[in-house]
């Protein structure tokens, strides 16, 4: 049962105490921090490492770190990685096998102790992305055991969005800047004349217990109103949007669209969009033998539908053109994902737009496909 804990307020010392409490519990705390000219996700040993006073300026194919005068820690949008780097790591050993002296082969599954993660500052879009990966990787016939074990132990502390970026479009994917259930705690950062503070909502017993152990005060109505207003305002400040059409139907009707050639001319097929996408989950496996041939290991690693080998069947790749690979990615993400997993695969975080070196913009491509379909429909009507 979830404790009916009332919202609370933490100040910066309270946030320090929160991180200290998580570290004291033996958790590996992952959160945003400034490194290599970006706000990346990394292990935090103290809340001091949070990107206080840093924001980002985003555009298609462009990311710049910019100072913020308000000193806010969470006033930035999605960075170069997502939480899948931790829950669904880029490379993981699945098992190893050894040839025994009798000539048999003995298999050893790899089940290392997984870290107890605490994710600090999970955006509402990323919270939805984690829920999507949960459906993909913990359900059905192809559950990923490593993911499941890491996910079960992970504690999620959301940070609601008050500062959407120019590449954000979560609202048009059915999401929004407020955190949906699924978090243990949800923070909303406020910096105003009453000080720098965080409204905390409790989403689980574990979250309630954690909050109990650190200095906090009950939320006053003014702080709650300010927090709600900031999140509401963020809803109207999305930098981009997908067209308000049935995307599933649009993609299904666009298989032969000319737009795919247009985007293929700009697409580097470098795979960046899939690697930064918080829901893209595809992996391949590699067998690693040693020189003696007596020991072998199977490793799972991130794969991408932009890799020619991804669709390699006997004799060659099925999707050899950039056109077919981009179409596969976008059609799966927005349309056939529904058939497979019951939802869209896009949460509108904008990473694929920001981190595409060529600046290909998923919202622009979908709008163009929609316009092309409308043109064809109009043309069809005229000639009937």
């Amino acid at each position, binding site marked *: 049962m979830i404790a009916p804990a009332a919202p609370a307020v933490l100040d910066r010392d309270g946030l320090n105490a929160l991180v200290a409490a998580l570290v004291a519990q033996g958790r590996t705390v992952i959160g945003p921090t400034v490194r290599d000219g970006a706000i990346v996700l990394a292990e935090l040993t103290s809340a001091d490492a949070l990107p206080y006073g840093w924001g980002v300026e985003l555009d298609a194919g462009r990311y710049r770190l910019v100072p913020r005068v308000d000193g806010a820690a969470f006033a930035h949008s999605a960075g170069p990685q997502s939480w899948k780097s931790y829950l669904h790591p880029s490379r993981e050993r699945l098992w190893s096998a050894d040839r025994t002296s009798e000539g048999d082969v003995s298999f050893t599954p790899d089940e290392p102790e997984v870290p107890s993660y605490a994710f600090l500052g999970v955006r509402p879009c990323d919270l939805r992305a984690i829920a999507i990966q949960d459906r993909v990787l913990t359900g059905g016939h192809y559950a990923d055991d490593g993911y499941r074990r890491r996910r079960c132990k992970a504690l999620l502390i959301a940070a609601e969005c008050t500062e959407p970026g120019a590449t954000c479009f979560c609202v048009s994917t059915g999401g929004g800047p407020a955190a949906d259930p699924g978090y243990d705690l949800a923070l909303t950062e406020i910096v105003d004349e009453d000080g720098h503070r965080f409204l905390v909502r409790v989403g689980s017993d574990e979250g309630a217990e954690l909050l109990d152990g650190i200095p906090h005060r009950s939320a006053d109505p003014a702080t709650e109103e300010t927090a709600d207003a900031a999140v509401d305002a963020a809803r109207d400040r999305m930098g981009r949007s997908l067209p308000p059409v049935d995307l599933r139907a649009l993609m299904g009707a666009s298989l032969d669209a000319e737009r795919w050639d247009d985007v293929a*001319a700009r697409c*580097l097929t470098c795979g960046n969009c899939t690697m930064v996408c918080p829901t893209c989950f595809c992996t391949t496996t590699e067998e690693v033998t040693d020189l003696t041939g007596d020991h072998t290991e199977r490793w799972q690693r991130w794969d991408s539908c932009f890799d020619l080998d991804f669709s390699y069947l006997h004799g060659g790749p099925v999707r050899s053109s950039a056109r077919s690979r981009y179409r596969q990615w976008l059609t799966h993400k927005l349309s056939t994902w529904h058939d497979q997993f019951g939802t869209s695969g896009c949460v509108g975080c904008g990473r694929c737009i920001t981190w595409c070196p060529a600046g290909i913009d998923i919202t622009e491509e979908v709008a163009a496909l929609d316009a092309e379909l409308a043109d064809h429909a109009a043309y069809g009507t005229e000639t009937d």
Partner: protein
Amino acid sequence: MTPKLAVFKLASCDGCQLTLLDCEDELLALAGEVEIAHFLEASSAVEPGPYDLSLVEGSVTTAEDAERVRAIRAASRHLVTIGACATAGGIQALRNFADVDEYRRVVYAHPEYVETLATSTPVSAHVDVDFELRGCPIDKRQLVEVITAFLAGRKPDIPDHSVCFECKRRGTVCVTVAHGTPCLGPVTHAGCGALCPAYHRGCFGCFGPSGSVNLPALIPLLRRDGLDEDDVERFLHTFNAAAFENFERELET
């Protein structure tokens, strides 16, 4: 029978062969699995062929080497070329776009002593090659993987995709998107582990073109990030000059 391994060198700097000696941890295991029958950089003791696996470094720049590589092929069950010179002609393939006689006159006091071909070409332009391992120099892990795969009779796990895959897998922040640094990563073959971007530098394309290259999409980005037309040409004409040139030629037609 212990398989016989041979290492040969054509026009090159020796760096790729050195990668084999650099396999410190694996070298003893390797010596236990193969007979190192011909490897002049390591030993002057030479066993005659045939060889089960020959690693060939360097490009073909003389008529003599063109002859020699045919003899190496004839003496080798498997022939694997290693490095940018052997797989693409290397830096010395810059001659392919210039007049070698002019170079010869400028560089050498006695140009008549120098016998050389007008082009620097990969080994695969002369004989059949079983596998091409890219890099300038090659990557140690990948070399061990290729040798291991040949010993086991399986296909080497050497992905053909871009360096971007490796940057993202190791969690490197994109130097183009976040810093505006020109980078050949999106068109360059993976294999180095995305070394340069991890040190805030753009990819130099040491591993040559990936399996899926779109230069018309990349060149405007290089120009945007501060390279002029000549810079772009120089950037593409470094370690794998001739390999990227093939894509540039497609651009012109």
